[in-house]
């Protein structure tokens, strides 16, 4: 029994009001009300949670403190110990990051005949890619088209998206689906081969393709298998800690750090692809996150130091229904389907306070508002949340609905002794996605020559808000494009004998010194700060 007697007392309040709430839709917010709750409670609007970054290509731009902290930190690698003539490995294309984007880039670069090295700080395939459950977007049906997909993406991103990138996304998408089919990816199909598709938030056509509720995992394990079968060099537990430039300021390699032996290695490469993912594990504004252990913004930090510009880094996607309790799965996503089936958010007094199908940003803001009003619930593990009244689902659709329609969710809660058929569950918004990233062109290239970025680390394609199912497609489209371009570029470079330089890190550190910055920690941080994972540690990294 995970719910304590004290919590059981609180649940009674939800049970008392359940009958009166049944069958009554809570009124939707007016546009003004939405604006108000967003402005006052959405994390992106809390001015004092942002500051202007002090140096670098985005100097003066407003970023979350936690991102500024790692961007404005001193380099982890002791640049004075760098010797330009000590090169440990030479490859054509160096790929940093072992998720879906990195794997896709490796396959395409390898096909071009390039020598490829994938360096990844954890296990190959340990990435947010495996956690994407819902699906992957692509226009594939006769009633759909890349143009309709384009308009959906733009509307979702509030029209801030970079057109060239969206065009690349929607026109490559069908090709990518065919590629995955050829690689033996097990998509949900009808007997005649028709791909099954459903709607996702903000889609005007049913173009969400899935592999049961393991869509990302299925894509990742297939790509990983193919990379391993092709004998592409993969170096695990080796984090890149600094990019290297040549005498003309072009990317030409990286310093790798063996996280277990504490040794550094210099890799020289004709082109470099960063596919390092996002920043979820920086726990912006102390939010829990649905993100993977490795999402610590390393790629942003390294790209930033060599002068690549970031875009849309002031907007973060928070999913309204992350698990608040049980502690074992805190931050983990409660799929939107739970609300689609009729479960509603309820406060400590058993009152509903927001229409259950408001958009993600509005629902998130309303839940936060309810908690700051003191109407939240403190869970047995000390976390804050509101109820999501899941037993309503069984009342509305009949007994057995939850086990049938939400098997993964049901298994997850049952594992930790919460019966979501009988008792409500505790939820709180969770940090889900970094909408922006390093600015790229449609071939993955950045403003730094020979440096490419793909996947969540890159920015522009999703504008200020990403739609569900577009990130799985994004990592493959731009992973492939970056892999192809980086290999072609590498092939065009003859007589490659760069004078490797780490001066940019030195200059960066000197600028920090001149700004009077104190050295508290170094970046990239590689693993989440300990105090973020362990609430017993009251460390403070904020400057």
């Amino acid at each position, binding site marked *: 029994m995970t719910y304590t007697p004290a919590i059981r007392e609180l649940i009674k309040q939800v049970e008392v009001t359940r009958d009166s709430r049944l069958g009554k839709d809570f009124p939707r917010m007016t546009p003004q009300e939405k604006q108000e709750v967003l402005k006052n409670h959405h994390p992106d609007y809390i001015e004092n949670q942002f500051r202007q970054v002090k140096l670098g290509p985005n100097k003066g731009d407003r970023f979350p403190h936690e991102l500024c902290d790692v961007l404005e930190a001193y380099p982890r690698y002791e640049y004075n110990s760098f010797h330009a003539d000590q090169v440990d490995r030479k490859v054509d294309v160096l790929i940093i990051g072992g998720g879906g984007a990195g794997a896709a880039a490796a396959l395409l670069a390898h096909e071009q005949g390039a020598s490829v090295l994938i360096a990844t700080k954890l296990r190959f395939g340990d990435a947010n890619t495996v956690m994407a459950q819902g699906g992957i977007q692509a226009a594939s049906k006769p009633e759909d088209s890349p143009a309709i997909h384009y308009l959906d993406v*733009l*509307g979702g991103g509030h029209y801030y998206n970079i057109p060239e990138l969206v065009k690349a996304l929607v026109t490559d998408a069908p090709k990518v689906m065919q590629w995955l089919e050829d690689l033996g990816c097990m998509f949900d199909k009808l007997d005649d081969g028709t*791909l099954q598709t459903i709607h996702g938030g903000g889609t005007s*056509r049913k173009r969400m393709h899935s592999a049961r509720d393991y869509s990302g995992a299925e894509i990742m394990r297939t790509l990983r*298998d193919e990379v391993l079968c092709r004998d592409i060099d993969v170096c695990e537990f080796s984090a890149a800690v600094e990019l290297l430039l040549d005498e003309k300021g072009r990317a030409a390699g990286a310093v790798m750090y063996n996280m277990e032996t504490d040794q550094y290695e210099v890799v020289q490469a004709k082109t470099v692809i960063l596919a390092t993912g996002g920043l979820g594990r920086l726990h912006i504004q102390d939010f829990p996150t649905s993100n993977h252990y490795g999402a610590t913004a390393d790629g942003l930090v390294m790209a930033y130091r060599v002068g690549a510009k970031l875009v849309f880094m002031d907007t973060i996607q928070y999913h309204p229904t992350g698990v608040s309790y*049980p502690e074992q799965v805190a931050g983990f996503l409660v799929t939107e389907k739970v609300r689609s089936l009729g479960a509603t958010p309820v406060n400590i007094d058993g009152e509903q306070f927001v229409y259950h199908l408001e958009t993600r940003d509005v629902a998130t803001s309303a839940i936060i508002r309810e908690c700051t009003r003191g109407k939240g619930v403190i869970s047995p593990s000390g976390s804050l949340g509101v109820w999501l009244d899941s037993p309503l689902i069984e009342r509305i659709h009949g007994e057995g609905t939850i086990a049938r329609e939400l098997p993964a969710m049901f298994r997850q809660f049952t594992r930790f002794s919460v019966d979501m058929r009988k008792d409500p569950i505790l939820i709180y918004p969770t940090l889900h996605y970094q909408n922006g990233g390093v600015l790229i062109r449609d071939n993955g290239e950045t403003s730094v020559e020979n440096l490419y970025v793909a996947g969540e680390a890159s920015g522009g394609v999703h504008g200020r808000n990403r739609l569900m199912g577009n990130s799985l497609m994004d990592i493959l489209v731009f992973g492939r494009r970056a892999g192809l371009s980086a290999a072609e570029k590498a092939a065009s470079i003859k007589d490659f004998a760069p004078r490797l330089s780490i001066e940019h890190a030195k200059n960066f550190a000197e600028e920090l010194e001149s700004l009077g910055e104190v050295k508290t920690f170094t970046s990239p941080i590689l693993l989440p700060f300990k105090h973020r994972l362990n609430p017993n540690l009251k460390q403070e990294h904020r400057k």
Partner: protein
Amino acid sequence: MTDLNTLEDNKSSLLERETVEVYIMGKKYTMPNSLTVMKGFEYAGYTLLRGCGCRAGFCGACATVYRVGKNHELKVGLACQTKVEQEMYLTQIPFYPHHRVSYHLEELRPTEDQVVEIYPEINKCLGCNSCTNVCPQDLKVMKYIAHAIRGEVSMVADESFDCLMCGLCASKCPANIVQYKVAILCRRLHSKYLVKKAEHLKRLSGRLESGEFNALLDELMQADKTTLAAKYNQRDIE
């Protein structure tokens, strides 16, 4: 915001939770019983490097072995999905090694003996069912290996679908079978050769290549925000 303080005050009464004594690599720690094995390590001050991934039961990086009290049985599970218990003896195992097998899917055929040809050791299955017993996803691992031996590729694909490739099955196998690698080979064979291709996808790609959508896309790319918003708000929804 004052109400937050009230909540803080209430916290202590709600937080009357039990603690357990857990041994990590032989050393005793007292910790709340509400933790997972993974969070237990972190609570005790360890920083996980190997043996930690998505932390949500999807990636299979955190296979763990443990014993409880005087029970001789060596238990296994995913560290992010297993709760700490009184007198648990813990250690994290690194990623379980597998032998390197290279094949070119293009050159394979989904014939009866294709899987055995690549993984001949599956014929040595002793039928001990250890693999099934340890699977954190409750897959019938031994059963799908039996299908693999008989060349029933699609059955393996279906039975093994929820596999996280954590490697616990292989760690227990007395016949040295690497079950999860057999499984992915079958899923790929099944998906590439034994199900029909999506014809609608091929057709749409053809239309794309013929340039059918270029004019429409160009128009959208040139459009200003107001025009786009108008189009977006008027779009028909399937």
